[in-house]
């Protein structure tokens, strides 16, 4: 989006620059053309001036030669020589000025030829020995009165030059209008392009501002979410830490409870045995080990009958020597102070009173606690 907008702005400026360059080139070309045209006009006026000078000098020389022929006054002769000299200069300049225009040049040369011929007559008059001779020369050149031909040729040349000047004026007017139109059109197009660029830049700026606002809003939303998420995570972490500590505390409390339970059971002097429903020993207190003289591992997970026998039955002699105990446990009732025999560490039977308490878990008998109190 950004690159495209910049490319478009650049294209607009390139177009504006191209139009400005074209207008500048057209203007420079026109200035050059005007310069050349001005030189040409000056040149044309110079040609006209020289042609008119030719006629003026020729008329003057003719008049002064005629006056000299009549009055023989040397001042006329001097003046005539001066006019002839001017005539020569005007003819030479006219020939030189038209040397690059073949058609005009040929006409000027013709004019020069005619004018020189006329000037030669005037020179002859000035060289005449006296008035009669001068009059004779004048008469001998009857065509002297034909300066009208020379004038006509000179006027035709002047007329051609003036026609060229007028044509040039018209062309110059058209060219001036064209250049003016080009300049104004270029300026108008450039203004339009500048307006377009301004609108493009304004639209781009609006888009940028909108994008920046959208980005700021998105960032703000993101920051809020991050803050909320961080707070949630921190809270969750705190809860987790608290739960963890609480669990450790609960485990510790449980250990305490077990420790004290064990202390309580172990501190009882009577023999305490925990039995399963199948009458196997699952736990004993130290008093059992002290009396029986066997290690706990030798008693635990073994039948209770290995330790105790109903008084009257030798230990281990009967297939079900603890039948009354099994039945009581199966039926879920207590037995109190049943006489039994327990084999001590020397293998001697020791009389004791057995009490059996069923252990219930949710109203279901899962085992029993046997307490043996020695009665010797």
């Amino acid at each position, binding site marked *: 989006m950004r690159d495209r907008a910049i490319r478009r702005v650049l294209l607009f400026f390139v177009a504006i620059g191209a139009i400005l360059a074209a207008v500048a080139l057209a203007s420079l070309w026109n200035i050059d053309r005007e310069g050349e045209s001005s030189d040409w006009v000056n040149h044309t006026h110079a040609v006209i001036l020289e042609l008119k000078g030719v006629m003026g000098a020729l008329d003057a020389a003719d008049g002064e030669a005629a006056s000299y022929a009549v009055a023989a006054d040397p001042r006329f002769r001097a003046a005539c020589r001066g006019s002839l000299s001017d005539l020569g200069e005007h003819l030479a300049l006219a020939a030189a000025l038209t040397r690059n225009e073949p058609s005009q040049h040929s006409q000027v040369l013709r004019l020069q030829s005619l004018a020189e011929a006329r000037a030669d007559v005037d020179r002859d008059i000035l060289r005449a020995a006296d008035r009669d001779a001068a009059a004779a020369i004048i008469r001998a050149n009857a065509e002297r009165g034909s300066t009208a031909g020379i004038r006509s040729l000179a006027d035709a040349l002047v007329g051609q030059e003036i026609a060229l000047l007028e044509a040039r004026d018209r062309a110059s007017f058209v060219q001036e209008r064209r250049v003016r139109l080009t300049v104004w059109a270029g300026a108008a197009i450039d203004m339009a392009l500048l307006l377009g660029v301004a609108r493009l830049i304004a639209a781009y700026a609006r888009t940028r501002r909108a994008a920046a606002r959208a980005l700021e809003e998105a960032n703000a939303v993101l920051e809020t979410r991050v803050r909320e998420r961080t707070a949630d995570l921190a809270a969750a972490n705190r809860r987790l830490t608290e739960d963890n500590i609480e669990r450790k505390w609960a485990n510790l409390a449980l250990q*305490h409870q077990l420790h004290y339970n064990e202390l309580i059971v172990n501190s009882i002097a009577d023999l305490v045995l925990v039995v399963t429903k199948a009458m196997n020993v699952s736990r004993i207190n130290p008093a059992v080990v002290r009396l029986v003289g066997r290690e706990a591992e030798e008693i635990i997970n073994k039948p209770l009958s290995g330790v105790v026998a109903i008084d009257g039955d030798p230990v281990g002699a009967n297939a079900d020597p603890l039948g009354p105990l099994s039945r009581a446990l199966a039926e879920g009732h207590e037995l109190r102070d049943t006489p039994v025999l327990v084999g001590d560490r020397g293998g001697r039977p020791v009389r004791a009173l057995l009490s059996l308490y069923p252990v219930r878990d949710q109203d279901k008998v899962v085992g029993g606690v046997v307490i043996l109190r020695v009665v010797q």
Partner: protein
Amino acid sequence: MKKPILIIDDEESIRSILAEYLSEQGYRVASVATPSEARKAVKTEVPLLIITDLQLEDSDGLDLVAQLKADLKAVPVILLTGVLFDARVAENLESRSISSYLSKTAPLSRVLAEVRRLIGPA
């Protein structure tokens, strides 16, 4: 400024868990194992609350409370009791030398609630 609490218990595990928990809650916790350390600690900084075990290794928790309360009458005391409950605890509670007692099997949230009741939130 965090509120200072002194924990007295001869079991390191009890001390560390209680200290960690109450620190997490924003209290400044000092913990000691013996009565002599407790006496030193209260001289260094008077706590806003004392939490002590009833059964200490070389002393009775109630005797220690009586000694500490001689100088720190306004400081409330929470007594932590184990499985074996001592009837003197209730007597001391009535004589106001102990602010409350809690079993060590009570959940920590219960301990915190008692702490907040006595000295306010952290």
